[in-house]
């Protein structure tokens, strides 16, 4: 699968989830329709999105997605057409949420970020794990081999659902061990 599109450059570190989507927009019960709130908590966020209406790829600095566990951050990105976030590092919970919602968290070296922020357009091959700049330069990255499946095909919940019998058997053996002890 290839994500190819224009870049939303966010020249900031520590873009927390309150900046991605402020808490007063967390009042729904569905995962959809949240794109209109994207980056409304970030200084200059609304203007930035207006200047890049077709962006498909966010480029940002370190520790993207820190703070709250709200999966709304990933849902609002997806709803706005963002399919990848390129940064030197991510906060754990956002990182997991991104994989589970079809937003690729692409980790690249810090040194590459200045150049990528200036790119109008990037091409990211998620299968080959290679990012290509508009000038043709290639940057390799690594995706989690298991979560990559969830990223490309969805199915985190279905994967776990398929483990239920195994989990029950494990639980029975745990109970038996505890009983023996």
């Amino acid at each position, binding site marked *: 699968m290839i994500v190819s599109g224009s870049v939303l450059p966010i020249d*900031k570190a520590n873009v*927390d989830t309150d900046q991605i989507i402020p808490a007063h927009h*967390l*009042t729904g019960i*569905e*995962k959809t329709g949240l794109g209109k709130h994207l980056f409304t908590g970030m200084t200059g966020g609304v203007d930035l999105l207006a200047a890049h209406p077709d962006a498909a790829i966010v480029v940002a600095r370190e520790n993207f997605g820190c*703070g709250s566990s709200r*999966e709304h951050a990933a849902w609002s990105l997806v709803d706005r057409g963002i399919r990848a976030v390129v940064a030197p590092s991510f906060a754990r919970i956002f990182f*997991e949420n991104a994989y589970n919602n079809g937003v690729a968290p692409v980790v690249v070296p810090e040194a590459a970020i200045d150049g990528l922020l200036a790119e109008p357009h990037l091409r990211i091959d998620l299968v080959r794990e290679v990012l290509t700049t508009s000038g043709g330069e290639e940057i390799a990255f690594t995706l989690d081999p298991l979560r990559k499946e969830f990223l490309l095909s969805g199915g985190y919940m279905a994967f*776990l659902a398929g483990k239920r019998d195994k989990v029950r058997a494990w639980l029975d053996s745990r109970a038996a061990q505890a009983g023996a002890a």
Partner: protein
Amino acid sequence: MPRSLFEKVWNAHVVEELPGENALLFIDRVVAHEITTPQGALEIERDFDDALFDPDRIVAINDHVSPAKDTETAIQAKVLRDWAKRHGIVLYDLGRNGICHVVAPERGYVEPGMTLACGDSHTCTLGAFGAFALGVGSTAQGGAMLAGCLVLGRPKVMRVTLKGRLTHGATAKDLALHVIATLGFKGGTGYVLEYAGDGLASLSMDERMTLCNMAIEAGATTGMCPPDETTFSYLRGRENQPTGDAFEAKVDAWRALVADPGATYDAEVTIDVDALRPMISWGTNPGESVPIDGVVPAGAAEASLRYMGLTPGQPLRSLTIDQAFVGSCTNSRLSDLRAAAEVLRGRSVSVPTIVTPGSQAVKRAAEREGLHDIFQDAGALWTHSSCGPCLGMSMGVLAPGARCVSSTNRNFPGRMGAGGRVHLASPAVVAASAVLGRIASPDDLPARAAVEAEAVRG
């Protein structure tokens, strides 16, 4: 092979090793609140026959906006309520509820050695009990509800050794802020912070919860404290725990949940607790914190300075404030309220001040001690329990540019309202600041008699 506390709990819950150093981790307990649960619950209802792995492992709590503030939040609460009823899940609802990280332990749902997941980043609070308590997204929480497990990459472990005791007015909150300032805002990313040392042994459960609550603010997967007599005493006689021999048998098993001598860690840091003084944040993440006597550091991030309206070298104590808040999953337990009340007793606040207990049980306990009278005599607003102003979701939102000293956990831009400026501190510092209308420690306050004489002179 000697093992850390984390390794013992982790190894006891791995159902299957998965590719990419991931594990299928069994989750003993799910805590479900109204903001992040409905999405997963509805997905299970639609796509998986509404089948939960084990409803008895779930406890539901309406906590963020309770009572509801509008139609949308009323629907969230109703979805959680209906879902809990349909599945026979225990629900703490309006009147018996509070912040989930306060309610779950006070009702005995958290114990040493368990794994626990909740769609809330401050779930790490509950690592105070020697549990592996994990904040996750709604999908992962849904997975734990559906299949009793979730996928997690095995974290590394950092031992944080606390040396000495809290003195000089320093509290567990100041310790938490100091740890984050030491590690850096993302310095704990990829790690579990396993606390150790003589400084930990002297902390109460409330203090350990405050400390672990902010592990996420260093980016950590969670924090964990080895259980000890303090932990067992907290749990003994608590509801949802067995009594008598059955409880003592559990205690015997829990005693093994300490790091083995010679256990190795991926990283180590030692904190000099004796040297701690009250802390205050100046910037836009909790790592941007200094002792209250300090100044805004040279070389501070320009964006943080601009947002907070500060300049390098500026003393924090010079800052006038517009609001004060005591509450949140960090500092809303009875001991926190006592600390704030001790400062406010016989004094008056000079800025709008909100005091929000962490649960209705905490509220009632505080009222039995008369703390509500102290707060209200001082002119503070004493509210029902909730997350309150902490995340700007319901009441107490800041105006743009307004400065608030707050016992909460996040000072992110816009956290308590667009353009609002948050300074994180302990309940005692919040209370002292509320009295003086500027950032202050309790030591800065004039003697109570003088305040009273002044009040009489009018």
